[in-house]
C-alpha cells in the first residue's frame, strides 16, 4: 500500500466541515482520516454508536457525512452494522444492487469497551465484513467525563473524582485491542495521530480493505476530559506513543507486528504532566502514583514486545 501525503490530503472529505465537535477533539480527526482511505468509486455506510461524534455530526436535519450513515443507539453499533452488511450481501446476491460498499462503524470507548462490547464481540465472531473503529478518549465524554473501562488509572473523572480519600480511578484500563485480537479476526491495529498520519492511514486502509471483521483502536484525545490546551493535541498523542502508554502495533491474522518503537522510551510523567486529569499525581507525596503508573505501562509494553517477537 502506498502513502502519498499530498495526494491523500487533496482528496474530497467524507466528513464535511461544519460539524459541531469541539476544537482540538480527536474524534473528528479520526473519522476524517479513516474515511480518506476509501478508494475512489467505493461507497460506504458509516455506522455510529451514540456519543459526542453522533450528536455533533448528525443533528437533524443536517448530516456531516457525504456517505450513507446510520446511528441506532449506544450499545449496538456492532450488531446494527451486522444487519446493514448482511443486507448488502443478500441484496447483491439477489441482484438488487451492484455497487461496492464498505462498512465502517465508529464508537467511543464507552460505546465500545463497555456498553457495546457484547454487540461488537458478536459481530466480530460472526465474521461480518466490516471495520469497527474505536475513537478512544478514555471516558464518557458526551455525558460529561465519567469513567469508562478505558479510563487510565488515576485519571480524575466526574465519577472517579479525586478527593481526600481518592486518587482518581483506582483500576488500570481494560486492554480492548487484545480482546479483539482474541476474536481471531484477520486484522486488529492500534494507532493515533502522528506526524503526517502515515500510520493511521495505512492501518485504516488495511482494515477497510481486509475481508472480514477488522478493528482499529485510535487514541483520540479529548481536550475537555483530559484538560490540555487544544493546540497540544498532536503533542499529547506523540507523548502517548513515545512513553509507550499507547503503543502502535497491528495484528495480521494473529501475527503481532510492532509498527513503531521509540528510540528512547520517555518517562510516563511526560505524557501525564500536560493533562489536568492527572494533576494530583504531581503533588508532593504522590510520587508513588507515578511509579505505579510507570510500572503498569512497563508491564504492558514488555508483554507487547514479547508478542511481537
Amino acid at each position: 500500500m502506498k502513502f502519498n501525503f499530498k495526494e491523500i490530503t487533496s482528496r474530497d472529505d467524507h466528513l464535511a466541515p461544519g460539524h459541531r465537535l469541539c476544537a482540538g477533539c480527536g474524534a473528528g480527526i479520526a473519522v476524517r482520516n479513516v474515511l480518506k482511505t476509501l478508494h475512489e468509486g467505493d461507497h460506504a455506510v458509516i455506522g455510529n454508536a451514540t456519543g459526542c461524534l453522533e450528536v455533533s455530526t448528525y443533528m437533524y436535519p443536517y448530516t456531516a457525512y457525504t456517505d450513507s450513515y446510520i446511528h441506532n443507539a449506544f450499545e449496538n453499533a456492532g450488531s446494527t452494522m451486522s444487519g446493514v452488511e448482511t443486507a448488502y450481501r443478500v441484496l447483491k446476491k439477489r441482484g438488487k444492487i451492484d455497487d461496492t460498499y464498505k462498512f465502517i462503524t465508529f464508537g467511543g470507548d464507552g460505546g465500545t469497551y463497555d456498553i457495546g462490547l457484547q454487540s461488537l464481540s458478536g459481530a466480530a465472531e460472526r465474521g461480518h465484513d466490516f471495520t469497527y473503529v474505536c475513537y478512544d478518549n478514555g471516558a464518557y465524554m458526551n455525558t460529561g467525563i465519567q469513567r469508562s473501562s478505558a479510563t487510565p488509572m488515576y485519571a480524575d473523572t466526574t465519577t472517579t473524582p479525586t478527593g481526600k480519600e481518592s486518587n482518581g480511578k483506582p483500576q488500570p484500563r481494560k486492554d480492548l485491542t487484545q480482546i479483539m485480537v482474541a476474536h481471531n479476526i484477520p486484522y486488529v491495529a492500534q494507532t493515533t495521530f502522528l506526524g503526517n498520519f502515515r500510520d493511521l492511514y495505512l492501518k485504516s486502509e488495511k482494515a477497510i480493505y481486509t475481508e472480514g471483521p477488522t478493528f482499529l483502536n485510535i487514541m483520540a484525545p479529548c481536550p475537555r476530559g483530559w484538560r490540555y490546551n487544544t493546540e497540544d493535541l498532536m503533542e499529547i498523542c506523540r507523548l502517548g506513543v513515545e512513553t509507550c502508554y499507547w503503543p502502535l502495533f497491528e495484528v495480521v491474522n494473529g501475527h503481532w507486528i510492532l509498527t513503531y518503537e521509540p528510540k528512547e522510551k520517555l518517562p510516563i510523567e511526560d505524557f501525564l504532566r500536560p493533562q489536568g486529569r492527572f494533576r494530583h499525581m504531581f503533588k508532593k507525596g504522590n510520587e508513588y502514583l507515578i511509579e505505579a503508573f510507570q510500572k503498569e505501562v512497563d508491564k504492558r509494553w514488555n508483554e507487547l514486545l514479547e508478542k511481537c517477537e
Partner: protein
Amino acid sequence: MSRKDRLSGNEAVAIAMRQINPDVMPAFPITPSTEIPQYFSNFVANGQVDTEFIPVESEHSAMSAAIGAEAAGARTLTATSSCGMAFMWEELYVASSNRLPIAMALVNRALSGPININADHSDAMGARDTGWIQIFSENNQEAYDNFVMAYPIAEHEDVHLPIMICQDGFITSHAVENIVIEDDDDVKKFVGEYEPKHFLLNADEPLAVGPYSVTNYYMEARRAQAEAMAHVPGVVLEVAKKFESIFGRHYGLIESYRMEDADYAFVLMGSAAGTMKEYVDGLRKEGEKVGLVKVRMFRPFPAKEVAQALSHVKAVAVLDRAESFNNVGGPLSGEVLRALFLQKVRCEAADYVYGLGGRDLLMEHVRSVLEDLKKLCAGETLPAFYRYLGVRE
C-alpha cells in the same frame, strides 16, 4: 394449491416466513418462540429460502441488526418472546421511529419474575406504546394468516411501521391443529416484492438514518409517526379484504361472536377467544344472553369498532392477560373503557386478570364473571375495580 396440514403455531408461522423468503432474519433463541428460527434455519440449510440468517448474540442485537438490515433496504423479520422482547424494548422505539416495516413473530409469554415460560400478554403489553402495530391470533390458522398479511400492512406506503404478529405461547405455538397452508406462489404474489423508496444502499441517494433531534424537531417526528398509525386500521382492512378475496378467510379489526342480541359481553384477545367461544355457546344453551368481542388488532386500538360492538349490552367484562399494577385494571380494560366513554356508550363494566403464566381460563371463572355483571346490573357494586380469576388469594 392450498393444503391442509397438522401444524403447530410456530411451524405455521415459520412456513409463512419460508413462503415470504425475506432478505434477512436475525434471531436469538427464547422459549416458546425458539422453534421459529429453528425451522427457518433448516429452510436456509436446505436451500428452501435464500434469506441471510444472522444468529445474533442477544435479542437486543436481533432487533439492532433488524434495524440495520431494514434501513439498508432489506425485508427483515425476527421472532421472540417475553424477556427477549423486553430486552429489545429500546430498539422497538428506534425501529418504529425510523419507520422501518420490520415484521416480528411474538410468541406471547409471561415476563420474569418469577421466571415462567408460559403464555400471557405482559410482553406485548409492555411494548404497546412502542409504535408497533400489534395483531393477536386466536389459533394456529390465524397466526399463519396474520403473518402472511404482515408485510402488505407494514410496508404500505401510508404506514411504513413495524408490525408484531402475536400468538399465545404453547397454547398455539406448540399445540398442533389442522390448518390450511396456502400455495407458495399465491402467498409470494400476495405479499409481493419489497421496493423501499429510501434505503442506505442506494448509491444514487446516500441516506442518513437515526438523527439526533433536539426540542425543535422531536415532537414533529412523533406526530408524523402518530399520523402513520392513524392510517393503519384502513390498511389492515384493505389487506384483509384482499386476503379474503384470494384465500377465503375473513378478518376484521375485531371479531364479534354471538353479540347480536347479547346483554352481557366478554372482551379479550388471543387464544382464550377460542375457549371463550365454547363457554359462550354453553351459557347460551343455558339461556344466558352472552357474547364475545375478540380484539384482533390491539395497536392501534379499534376504539370505534369495539364501542360499536358493545353499544347495546347491559354489561361488559374485560379479561386481561396482563397485570398493569395500577390498582384499577389491566391494559385492555383501559383501552375498552376509554373507547366506551369517548363513544358515549354507557353500560356496566368490570375487569379481570386471568391466565397469567399460562393458567387456564375455566368455565367456573366465566360463570363468576357473569354473576358479577348481573350484580352490577342489579345496582350492586363490586368490591374492587378488578379482580383475578382462578387465583389462590
